[in-house]
């Protein structure tokens, strides 16, 4: 690890100014990803600007019934928040499906969204990787492919975004609030992360020095009836092979008034499955309809021998998430193999 400066700013504006003015500076929050990257040589900042002590750690109630979650709220505290559990259960479930008890006590809301891919080549500085070293090539294409993206990938990068929280936030139409030297910005979380294109070193649309300060949630019927299902190689403490957040707003006769579907483990950003949502909206809900809707979305998928399993897994897991929300619909379709 190279020499490292350390600054503890007194307020968010000072933190933003310090990083904005210094190309070698990086924000440090919970550190659960960045400290590892310092050791691995994946991240080589000259100065860390420690924002973990800034007073951005409250969950406040908004006038519209929503919640404003300060960026420094720890993952464990957020997951346990009574209103989140009742009104945005997919978000609570996504947090609880991530990492371990210890890491959830350290990791922050904003930091969770800005964690970086666990692509094995990104984390191994002895291998080419366009995300870590732009222009060096992609080792994951034709290499160990099992974790690779199947939607929205480019010739430069097939990495997937690792956050569970981000997937659930996209599904419930959350807003991310950030601070720049020009003032506050607000964006849907769905517009925070980007596809790799020819610049996979950029995970998000944030500018250098732009600090996430909060995430805001708005209540909705689909958020209240939502869940998150994660498939991984072991029962706990592993990243997603595929994950699914689903929110449903149904009429009494189980017609889909509104639906939100977002997937993790399949793309460079949380993947909002808008084609699948369109296919389901206004329809009578049954499992065949869900599977057919997933097929609409994955028609554009690109798989290799190593990632072909993700498509049937998306069908099965999306159907499972819907069954968990609506146990009364019959499992009237065969599992895909």
């Amino acid at each position, binding site marked *: *690890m190279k*020499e*490292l*400066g*350390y600054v503890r700013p007194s307020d968010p504006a000072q933190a933003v100014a310090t990083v904005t003015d210094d190309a070698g500076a990086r924000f*440090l929050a919970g*550190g*659960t990803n960045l*400290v*590892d990257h*310092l*050791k*691995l040589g994946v991240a080589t900042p000259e100065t*860390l600007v*420690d924002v*973990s*002590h800034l007073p951005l750690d409250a969950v406040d109630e908004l006038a519209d019934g929503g919640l404003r979650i300060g960026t420094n709220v720890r993952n*464990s505290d957020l*997951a*346990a928040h009574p209103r989140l*559990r*009742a009104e945005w*259960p997919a978000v*609570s*479930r996504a947090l*609880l*499906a991530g*990492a*371990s*008890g*210890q*890491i959830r*006590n*350290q990791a922050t809301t904003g930091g969770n969204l800005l964690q970086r891919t666990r692509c094995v080549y990104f984390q191994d500085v002895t291998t080419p990787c366009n995300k870590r070293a732009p222009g060096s090539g992609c080792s994951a294409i034709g290499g160990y492919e099992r974790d690779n993206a199947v939607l929205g990938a480019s010739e430069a990068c097939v990495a997937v975004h690792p956050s569970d929280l981000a997937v659930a936030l996209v599904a419930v139409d959350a807003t991310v609030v950030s601070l720049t030297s020009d003032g506050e910005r607000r964006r849907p979380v769905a517009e925070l992360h980007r596809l790799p294109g020819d610049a996979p070193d950029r995970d998000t649309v944030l500018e250098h020095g732009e600090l996430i300060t909060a995430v805001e949630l708005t209540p909705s019927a689909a958020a209240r009836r939502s869940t998150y299902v994660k498939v991984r190689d072991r*029962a*706990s*403490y592993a990243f997603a092979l595929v994950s699914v957040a689903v929110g449903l707003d149904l009429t009494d006769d189980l017609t889909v008034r509104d639906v939100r579907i977002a997937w993790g483990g399949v793309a460079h950003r949380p993947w909002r499955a808008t084609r699948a949502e369109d296919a389901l909206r206004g329809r009578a809900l049954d499992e065949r309809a869900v599977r057919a809707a997933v097929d609409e979305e994955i028609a554009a998928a690109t798989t290799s021998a190593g990632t072909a399993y993700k498509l049937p897994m998306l069908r099965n897991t999306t159907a499972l998430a819907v069954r968990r929300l609506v146990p009364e619909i019959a499992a009237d379709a065969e599992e895909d193999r």
Partner: protein
Amino acid sequence: MDTSITLTVDGERHGLTVDTRTTLLDALRERLGNTSPKKGCDHGQCGSCTVLVDGRRQLTCLALAVSYDGAELTTAAGLAPDGPHPMQQAFLRHDAYQCGYCTPGQVCSAVGMLDEAARGQPSHVTEDLAAPTSVEDLTDAEIRERMSGNLCRCGAYVGILDAVREVAGA
């Protein structure tokens, strides 16, 4: 870059100067001589470096010491001032280790985990997120999930589960 910090460890206050790059784990072990937390993987994957930071279980290998200036840390060695803590006694009774290397992390994690459950925190395997949780109601599945951040390479999980269940009163 050197920075002066203060850490209270197992009730004792220490002032020390650390290089910015020093992890909390290395500060504890190499600078303060507290070898209770162990360096297993050093990448946040095994849990053997777990201590309580201001009462909450955390990994010291993924923490920079400078960021914890003023923190109060409790390692397994300092859990109980007078002899073994009830969790440590339960580990002894249930043979919840073989080589013992992961044990201080397991014990700190178990103590922190029961506190989380007592404060009503749900887990990944909690079926009804709206229902209140209590320590006495922790099922084996709940204990396993909540302890999943601590690996035991000797595979003493059966004993660990028994020990934690006993202390929980479940």
